[in-house]
C-alpha cells in the first residue's frame, strides 16, 4: 500500500507527462504482478462500487475528530474532497509495517462492502490508523470509489508499453474491458497485458471490442477546407448522430454491445439482441445507438438509403435516450415508447478478420453488404451524404438542427481505423454546427472541487421571465455551468462573487446579479424538473459579456424559441442534463 501511495504522491506532485511515465514505470517494474494488476486497474480509471457510504465516513470523522457537524461541513467545503478532508481531520498515525496493495484491496477494503454500519464504525478507524497520511488519502479514495490521479488511460497504456516493450496500441486493445466495474484483476491478467505479442494468437474469441477511433474537431471556414483537408471527393461524409457511440461485437453465437466508455451495455438494449441471429460470428460493427421514431420502425427497411432526410426524421432527441439509460429495469412500455436502432458506420471485423487496416472506403463497401445481408430494422446504415464540394455540403449541414443531428462527420476514404484520438493512420473530423447560445445572468455560485477548491467556479445562470418593457420581471434559473473560463477570468469572477454576495446557503452564495455570460449548449428540451421548464445539454460559458448590462440578457421566450418543433407544447419530458459522447 505504501508503495502505491508513494506512486500516487509522485503522480500528484508533477505536471510533466514524462515524470508521470517514469513514476509508473518505476512502480510497475518494482512491484509484484498482482499489485501491478490492481494499480493498472485504478490508474486507468477502474473503480469498484463505493464500499462504504459517504454518510458513514462523515459520521466516523465527526466522532473521531470530535468536531461539530457544521465545522466538518465548512472544512469539507474548503477542501473540496471528502477523502482529503477525512485525512486532514483524522488523527495522524505512523505507518505500520505494510501489506501489499492486493492484500489491502482484496482482504481489507473490498470486504467492507455491505457490512452493517456499527461494524464499519468499529472496523474502519483501526484499519485507517495503520496508514500514514499519504496512504490514508489513497485508502479512503479507494473506499469511496473516487480514486483519481492526473493520468489518462493513454498514459497508463504508454507506461505499460515501456515496461513490456510492446506497442502501446496493442496494450490499449488488451486493456479494453480491464476496468469493468466488476473486474477483479489478478496477476495473470496483468501478465497478459504485458505478455509478448505472439502469445496473443487466438485471444480474439471473446466479446472484446476494439479501441474506439475518435474524431477531431474541425473548426475552419468552409472556404479553407480544400486547402486544409483537400477536395471533398476524398472524404466519406455522414451526419454526426446524437446518440450513444457503440460497438456491436458478434462472436461465438453471442452479441455484446460496448459503449465508448468501454462499458458493456448489452443489457440496456435488448431489442438489439435479435441481431445475434442474423450477423455471422466474427463481426464487429461501429455505430451509434439512437432512439427511432415509432411509426418509422415498420417502414424503416423500405426507406431508400439515400433518403437521408427521412432517416434523420426517424432519429429522436438524445433526451429520450437518456431516459432509458437511467432506468435500472426496462419496462415493456419503455421498450415500446422509446425503441432504439443502431446506425452502423464502420466494420472493424468481418469473418473473424480484423479489418481496421483496410481503407475506409473498402470497409464501408463491406459494411453495406453486411447490413443488407442482415436485413433487420434494428441495424441500419448511417447514410452517406453527397455534395459537389464543401460549400454544397455546408449548405446541407445547415439542416442539422432541424434533423436532430450535431453536424457532419468527415472520414477520409483511405483512412485506417486508428486507436483513440490519433491521426497517424487516417483521420476523422467532426464538423459540428455552432452550439445554441444565449446571454444569461449569473445568480448563484458555488465553490469548485479539486483544482478549483475554494474558488467560486460553479455557477447557476438565469434568464428573464419577461421582456424588457415589463415592470416586474424576474430572473429564472435554467442552467448550471462551470467550464469555459480561463484561470484568470475565474479568479476575476470569484472576486466579484465575494464582493456581491447577498446570502450564503452552505457552499452556495446568491449574488446581486451583475455578470452576464454568453452560454453555449448542445441541446434543449422541455423539463418538468427545472423551474424554467427547460433543460439544456452541455451548458458552458462561451464568453464573459462584460459589455452587457443584465437588463440586456435574454428571456425565457428566446430560450423556448430554440426548442425543436416536435417537442414544443409536447408533454414534458423528464430530461436530465448530461452527455453522450
Amino acid at each position, binding site marked *: 500500500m505504501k508503495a502505491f501511495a508513494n506512486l500516487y504522491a509522485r503522480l*500528484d*506532485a*508533477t*505536471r*510533466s507527462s514524462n515524470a508521470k511515465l517514469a513514476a509508473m514505470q518505476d512502480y510497475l517494474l518494482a512491484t509484484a504482478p498482482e499489485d501491478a494488476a490492481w494499480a493498472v486497474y485504478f490508474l486507468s480509471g477502474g473503480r469498484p462500487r463505493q464500499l462504504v457510504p459517504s454518510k458513514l465516513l462523515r459520521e466516523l470523522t465527526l466522532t473521531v*475528530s470530535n*468536531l*461539530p457537524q*457544521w*465545522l466538518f461541513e*465548512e*472544512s469539507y467545503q*474548503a*477542501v*473540496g*474532497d471528502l477523502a*482529503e*478532508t477525512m485525512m*486532514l*481531520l483524522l488523527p495522524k498515525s505512523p505507518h505500520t509495517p505494510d501489506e501489499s496493495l492486493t492484500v489491502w484491496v482484496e482482504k481489507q477494503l473490498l470486504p467492507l462492502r455491505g457490512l452493517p454500519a456499527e461494524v464499519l464504525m468499529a472496523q474502519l478507524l483501526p484499519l485507517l490508523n495503520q496508514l500514514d497520511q499519504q496512504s490514508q488519502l489513497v485508502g479512503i479514495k479507494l473506499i469511496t470509489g473516487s480514486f483519481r490521479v492526473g493520468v489518462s488511460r493513454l498514459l497508463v497504456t504508454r507506461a505499460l508499453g515501456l515496461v513490456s516493450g510492446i506497442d502501446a496500441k496493442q496494450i490499449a486493445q488488451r486493456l479494453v474491458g480491464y476496468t469493468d466495474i466488476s473486474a477483479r484483476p489478478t496477476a495473470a491478467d496483468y501478465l497478459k497485458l504485458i505478455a509478448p505479442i505472439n502469445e496473443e494468437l487466438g485471444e480474439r474469441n471473446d466479446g472484446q471490442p476494439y479501441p474506439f477511433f475518435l474524431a477531431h474537431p474541425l473548426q475552419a471556414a468552409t472556404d479553407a477546407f480544400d486547402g486544409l483537408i483537400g477536395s471533398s471527393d476524398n472524404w466519406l461524409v455522414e451526419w454526426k448522430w446524437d446518440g450513444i457511440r457503440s460497438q456491436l461485437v458478434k462472436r461465438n453465437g453471442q452479441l455484446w454491445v460496448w459503449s465508448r466508455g468501454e462499458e458493456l451495455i448489452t443489457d440496456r438494449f435488448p431489442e438489439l439482441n435479435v441481431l445475434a441471429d442474423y450477423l455471422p460470428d466474427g463481426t464487429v460493427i461501429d455505430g451509434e445507438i439512437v432512439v427511432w421514431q415509432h411509426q418509422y420502425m415498420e417502414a424503416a427497411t423500405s426507406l431508400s438509403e439515400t433518403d437521408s432526410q427521412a432517416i434523420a426524421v426517424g432519429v429522436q432527441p438524445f433526451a429520450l435516450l437518456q431516459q432509458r439509460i437511467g432506468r435500472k429495469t426496462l419496462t415493456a412500455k419503455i421498450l415500446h415508447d422509446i425503441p432504439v436502432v443502431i446506425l452502423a458506420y464502420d466494420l472493424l471485423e468481418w469473418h473473424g478478420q480484423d479489418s481496421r487496416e483496410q481503407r475506409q472506403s473498402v470497409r464501408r463497401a463491406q459494411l453495406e453488404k453486411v447490413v443488407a445481408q442482415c436485413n433487420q430494422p434494428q441495424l441500419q446504415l448511417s447514410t452517406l451524404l453527397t455534395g459537389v464540394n464543401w460549400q454544397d455540403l455546408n449548405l446541407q449541414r445547415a439542416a442539422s438542427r432541424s434533423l436532430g443531428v450535431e453536424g457532419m462527420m468527415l472520414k477520409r476514404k483511405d483512412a485506417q481505423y486508428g486507436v483513440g484520438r490519433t491521426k497517424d493512420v487516417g483521420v476523422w473530423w467532426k464538423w459540428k454546427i455552432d452550439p445554441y447560445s444565449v446571454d444569461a445572468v449569473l445568480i448563484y455560485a458555488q465553490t469548485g*472541487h*479539486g*483544482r*478549483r*477548491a*475554494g*474558488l467560486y467556479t460553479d455557477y447557476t445562470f438565469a434568464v428573464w421571465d419577461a421582456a424588457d418593457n415589463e415592470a416586474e420581471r424576474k430572473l429564472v434559473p435554467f442552467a448550471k455551468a462551470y467550464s469555459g473560463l480561463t*484561470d484568470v477570468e475565474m*479568479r476575476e469572477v*470569484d472576486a466579484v462573487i*465575494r464582493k456581491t454576495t447577498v446570502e450564503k446557503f452552505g457552499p452556495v452564495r446568491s449574488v446581486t446579479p451583475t455578470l452576464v455570460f454568453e452560454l453555449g449548449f448542445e441541446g434543449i428540451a422541455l423539463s418538468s424538473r427545472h423551474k424554467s421548464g427547460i433543460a439544456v445539454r452541455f451548458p458552458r460559458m462561451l464568453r464573459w459579456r462584460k459589455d452587457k448590462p443584465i437588463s440586456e440578457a435574454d428571456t425565457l421566450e428566446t430560450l423556448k424559441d430554440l426548442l425543436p418543433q416536435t417537442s414544443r407544447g409536447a408533454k414534458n419530458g423528464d430530461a436530465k442534463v448530461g452527455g453522450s459522447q
Partner: protein
Amino acid sequence: MELIVARPEGLYCPPGDFYIDPWRQVERAVITHGHGDHARTGHAHYLAAAPSEGILRKRLGANIDLLSLEYGQKINHHGVTLSLHPAGHVLGSAQVRLEYKGEVWVASGDYKVEDDGTCAPFESVPCHTFITESTFGLPIYQWQPQNEIFADINQWWQSNADNNRASVLFCYAFGKAQRLLSGLNPDIGPIIVHGAVEPLNRVYREAGVNLPHTQYVSDIQDMAQIRKSIVLAPPSTQGTSWMKRFGDYSDAFASGWMQLRGARRRRGVDRGFVMSDHADWPGLQTAIMATGAERVFVTHGQVHTMVRWLNEQGLDAQGFNTEYGEEAAEAEANLPSQTEPSIEAKSTDMNSLKAFD
C-alpha cells in the same frame, strides 16, 4: 469601555486616539508588522517594535516618523498604557497590549506559536479581550513541526541537485524567505535569491539573525553550479522570463495554503511545502485560551467559522471587518510580491518622540 473599535480607517483605540494597522491614512498608527496589508504608507506618526524598524524604513521610507519600542517596554498615551509583545510571525512582529482603567486588550496582528528561530517567539499575554487573526481558522490546517518540513525541502533539493536540476522555491520575500534560508543545508549547493529577497536578508542579518550565504544568479557564471542550486524567489516571478536562466528546473511553493491538494494543483508547481507564518487551528485555539480572555474579536481569515466555534466554546466572540489579507485560500496565491524593494529615501531620521507620548 471598548478599547478598540472597527472604523473605516482601521482598528481604532478611542481613549488613546490612535489606530492599529490602519488601511487609510491617519494621524497615529501602531504597526504590528511590516507586511504590506498591515504597514501602509502615508500615516503621520508610526509606532512599532524596535526589531521591525529596519523593515519599515526599507518599505515605507527611511524618513517616516517612527517611534520604536523594545518588546515589553511600556508607554502611556492619553492614559492608555501601550506595550508591544512578540507575535512570532516575522522579524519585528508584535501584539499590541493596551491597558486603560484596569481593562486589558491585546490585538494580535498576525501570529504564529511555533518558534522558528528567525524572530522573537510568540509570547502569550493575559488580557480581558483578545483580537485574533483567523487566516487558518479551520481544523484542516495543522502544521508539521518545522524541522520535518526543512528535512523534506532539503531532500527535494538534494534529489534535484543529484539530477542536475535547479530547485526553484517560491515564497514571500519577507519572513518566509528568511525562515526558509535558516533551515536550508548549504552543503547541498549554492543558494540563489531573487533581487526582492536579498534586501530583506540584509535586514535580518543586521538584526543578528544567522542566515546562510546567499548569491544573486548573476554572481554565478557556471551553469553546472546553477543546476545544483536552490533559488528563492517571490511567487510573482513564476512564469516570467527571469526563470528561463535556470533551465529545466523543478519548482515548489512554500505556504500554509499548500496544505490542500486543490491549492497545490492550482499553483501549478511540482511540490507544495506546507509552511506558514500564521498559527494553525490548534495554535489559534491554544493562543486564544492562554490569554484567559472572555471576549474575542476575530479578524481576517475564517471570521465566521472562528466566531461560531468560539461562541460554542463559551467565549463571547464577534467578528471585526478588516482589510487585512483576504477571505479565501486564493488570497495568498493572488497577492503580488509583497516586497518590491522601496526606493530608499535619503533624508535624515526625523522621529518625533512626542507624537506618541
